[in-house]
């Protein structure tokens, strides 16, 4: 059995085991772990788009919001109808949740397609602004959508997210991105990032790589959004704005664009840091932004970019 697949199965088993014992852990630490997991999925999925394929997307939070809203809508509206009369308290809700997450992910993937297609011809700064624009457009649409709560958003979303789901999907995300990029086909992503014209010249379908990156990245962002919605139990359009996208981008930059391990470490670090720095929360953002600047000046390849591990770039 290939190593990545083995690793995935072990991870899934560990997730199941961990969640079976979750009652023994402090609720606060579990919450932090779930937070880390969600950020991990977001960062690794963005890494595919920004890091490996070199498409600077600043609208990732938009995909997250699509997943969040649609999965929540499913569980909140269809849930009671579907779950009525079910005897077990455990199984049907979990199936429903899984279906909801998938719906959210697929809708987000569709959004990724819609955003990726027009952005094909754009590079660098333009692409960044356009993805930012798309993120804002998605936010405004949700803000005006009364059935989805309008500006106030949705609250009272059932708390289906558990350590199991978060860790499982986290493992799945890492597995997918890793396998995608470290395959022969996957070298095309890196080629697209390195030199688009040269890649086209040797016959690679650059368009297909870019679209794939956007769609896969958006799919997992949508999953993360669904997990987030059923964790915080309340979502509003304002929580998925430009600042959220930037937070995810910072994780990718910190970890090193195109370096999955680094990005994972960065996601963990940047989820723990706000909790640790909560007493000095005002300084957190100042430190963040300062960090961003210093990082670009001193270690543009990221904090956790160890030689020999990252994709050549």
């Amino acid at each position, binding site marked *: 059995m290939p190593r990545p697949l083995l690793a995935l199965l072990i991870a899934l088993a560990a997730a199941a085991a961990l969640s079976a014992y979750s009652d023994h852990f402090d609720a606060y630490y579990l919450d932090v772990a779930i937070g880390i997991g969600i950020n991990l999925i977001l960062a690794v999925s963005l890494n595919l788009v920004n890091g490996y394929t070199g498409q600077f997307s600043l609208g990732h939070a938009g995909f997250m919001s699509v997943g969040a809203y649609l999965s929540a809508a499913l569980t909140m509206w269809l849930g009671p109808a579907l779950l009525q009369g079910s005897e077990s308290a455990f199984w049907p809700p979990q199936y429903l949740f899984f279906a909801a997450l998938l719906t959210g992910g697929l809708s987000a993937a569709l959004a990724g397609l819609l955003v990726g297609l027009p952005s094909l011809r754009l590079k660098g700064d333009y692409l960044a602004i356009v993805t930012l624009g798309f993120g804002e457009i998605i936010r405004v649409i949700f803000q005006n959508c009364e059935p989805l709560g309008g500006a106030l958003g949705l609250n009272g979303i059932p708390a289906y997210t558990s350590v199991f789901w978060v860790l499982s999907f986290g493992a799945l995300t890492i597995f997918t991105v890793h396998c995608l990029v470290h395959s022969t086909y996957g070298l095309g992503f890196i080629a697209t990032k390195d030199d688009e014209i040269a890649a086209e010249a040797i016959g690679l379908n650059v368009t297909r790589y870019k679209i794939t990156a956007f769609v896969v990245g958006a799919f997992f962002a949508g999953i993360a959004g669904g997990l987030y919605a059923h964790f915080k139990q309340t979502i509003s359009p304002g929580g998925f704005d430009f600042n959220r996208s930037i937070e995810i981008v910072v994780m990718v930059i910190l970890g090193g664009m195109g370096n999955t391990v680094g990005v994972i470490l960065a996601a963990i670090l940047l989820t723990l840091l706000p909790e640790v720095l909560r007493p000095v929360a005002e300084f957190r953002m100042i430190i*963040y932004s300062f*960090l961003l600047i210093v990082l670009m000046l001193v270690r543009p390849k990221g904090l956790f970019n160890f030689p020999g591990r990252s994709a050549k770039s």
Partner: protein
Amino acid sequence: MIEFFQQLLNGLSLGAIFALIALGYTMVYGVLRFINFAHSDVFMVGAYAGYYIGRFVPEHTVWGGLAALAVAMTICAVLGVIIERLAYRPLRSAPTLNVLITAIGVSLLLQNLGQFFFGATPRPFPELFPVTLFIFHGIYISSNQLVVIGVTLALLFALRFIVLRTKIGTAMRAVSQNPKAASLVGINNDLVISFTFALGSALAAAGGMLYALNYPSIDPLMGVLPGLKAFVAAVLGGIGNIPGAALGGLLLGVVETFVNGSKDWSTYKDAIAFALLILMLLFRPAGLLGSFTKEKV
């Protein structure tokens, strides 16, 4: 009919502010080929500079207002040069993506430092210029709106003069066309770039102060949305093109005002601005007045 002209005027005065900020974006992009995300926050610093200076000058005087404007522009020009020197210059030869990220970092830093030092609560901006209301055939114009339009036009012409008729302006155009060749003919690229930033930041400061005059409530995050809109305006007009930025700004201001005044679409106006941007980039990436340069291998 009166309503239409009133809305048009409203749109023009809003658009003048977008134009002022857009000018700064377009200048820096023209010379350095990157979007200075921090521009919108220099705008905010300009507004706060005007606020603090406003405490020392008497209200409702023309000389007070102009003095505040001049001092704010100077402070931000210096700020712009400092930012360029510390954050952008070391990355001159790095991929544009890195500079973009640094720019985002500087922008966030300014916003958060602003929240820390100034407090996030909005503050009322003093009335620096004398305020009168003009009524012309049923159309109401505030003197502040005229100040905005007037100052924007004046700065626009001043900018065009500098770029087309002065040595440093010629040097700016040279660097924007080909930096290597420019340094070969003896132009001090560093100086030119610093000057460009100083100029752009001064414009941002003017924009900030005029914005604050018209909407007298300032807060550290006030630059974010106007900055994005101004960038859209710059792209609409053709990024790197100075008259284009002005045109784009006015256009966006008018479109946004008419959307705002319509009953059902006003809440979508941000989305419409970005949709315009996306459409423009898809169908005419060079903008209205710009020219498209083919990417050579």
